[in-house]
């Protein structure tokens, strides 16, 4: 009798704790792809920090620009030195929130589609974005993924006219992360 009371208490308490629960990862993925007739440029960053508050739907993402790996070393150097100017603006940061929390239920396994809106800072310029994201919930994990486009000009990233044919004006971005509970 006593035992089941304790178990009951634990279950109740832990579900309360769930309300303010934060999920996170330091090994999230952020990739981008620029396609032009001249060349394809691909880069990915596998050490992106994602933090999500499951009760409020708040999502923060932080990526170090210098951690983007390119296929060609010179592209990587130019990306950091000439375009995003990593020494001045070392991080790309997203701060946002799930628009409608009734669309998701993080306590139940399943796949949920929801819009996430927030501000994305790249190259020192912050712009509002609203993207469609997918959340797969199950087994203590939340798998979050979204695809969206970023225009270089929106973030004051200048591309010289001689390279307009090599670098797309609008870059495809893929964000994907496997979040687990943050243990304090």
């Amino acid at each position, binding site marked *: 009798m006593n035992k089941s009371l304790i178990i009951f208490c634990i279950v109740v308490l832990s579900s309360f704790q769930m309300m303010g629960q*934060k999920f*996170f990862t*330091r090994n999230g*993925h952020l*990739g981008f*792809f620029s396609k032009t007739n001249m060349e394809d440029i*691909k*880069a*990915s960053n*596998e050490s992106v*920090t994602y*933090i999500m*508050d499951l009760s409020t739907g*708040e999502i*923060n993402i*932080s990526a*170090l620009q*210098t*951690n983007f*790996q*390119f*296929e*060609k*070393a*010179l592209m990587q*150097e130019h990306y*950091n*030195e*000439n375009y995003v*100017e*990593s*020494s*001045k603006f*070392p991080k790309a*940061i997203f*701060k946002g929130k799930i628009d409608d929390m009734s669309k998701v239920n993080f306590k139940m396994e399943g796949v949920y589609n929801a819009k996430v809106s927030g501000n994305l800072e790249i190259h020192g310029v912050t712009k509002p974005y609203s993207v469609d994201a997918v959340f797969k919930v199950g087994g203590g994990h939340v798998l979050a993924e979204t*695809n969206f486009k970023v225009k270089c000009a929106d973030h004051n990233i200048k591309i*010289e006219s*001689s*390279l307009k044919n*090599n670098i797309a004006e609008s870059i*495809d971005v*893929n964000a994907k992360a496997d979040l687990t509970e*943050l243990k304090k």
Partner: protein
Amino acid sequence: MSLLGDSDPIIYSSATFKSTRVINGQSIENVAGGVMDFRVSHRFGTFNSGIHKMFGLDIASMRLGLEYGLNDRVMVGLGRSNVNEEVDAFTKIKIFKQVESGPKKMPISLSYFASMVMRGTAWADPNRDNYFTSRLFYCHQLLLARKFNDQLSIQLTPTFVHRNLVETKADFHDIYAMGYGGRYKLTRRLAVNAEYFHVLGNRLPSGNTNSLSLGVDLETGGHVFQLHITNSASMNEKGFITETTGEWSKGDIQFGFNISRVFTIKEKKPPLAQ
């Protein structure tokens, strides 16, 4: 949500110089791992050689080089120069890198450079005993560089050159020099460079001079064009440091260029598919 920003990773300084050379001398930069750099270097004759030589444009010293990054820290290179029919082989190794921000502090980058040069010209005196080793020259350098900001980088290059065979008995086999190099970036594609090698302790014959070069770096995608004026004809380290005879004050100045074209031989692990 306070966790963002508390991860404080180390960011190393990058692109201290545009190219693996300041002008003649090595810069702190290596070609990246898996990247091949094909270099064509050219020095015309001196400006004061007169109209019959079209102020130097008729004369050409050149070096062709193939240089490769074994990884991001170690590069090797091989070059052929028509000055004294020389072949040079070298390695450049990054020991540590300047930290721009992060929990560790490191104000400078340090690399080690070593080269061997084989001179191919016919023996000055074929009748004496000539050894293959007499054709060899060695050079060791430490490269200490600091990127002060996005524009200004400065490099100090303590140098030791050993020559197995020297012209006269009075000549020293070992030469010590200090190199000073700097660049100032004007735009994201254009930088100006200056370089000076000071031979220490009067160990060279009186006709020899210190190498002084001024130039610009122009970058266009995979190419770097380095255009410069210099009083040195040789394009390997022991050559421009110990065999320069041109004097700026007398107009023994040569126009020259280095063209660098990089090819990615081995691509880095491909990023995840989109």
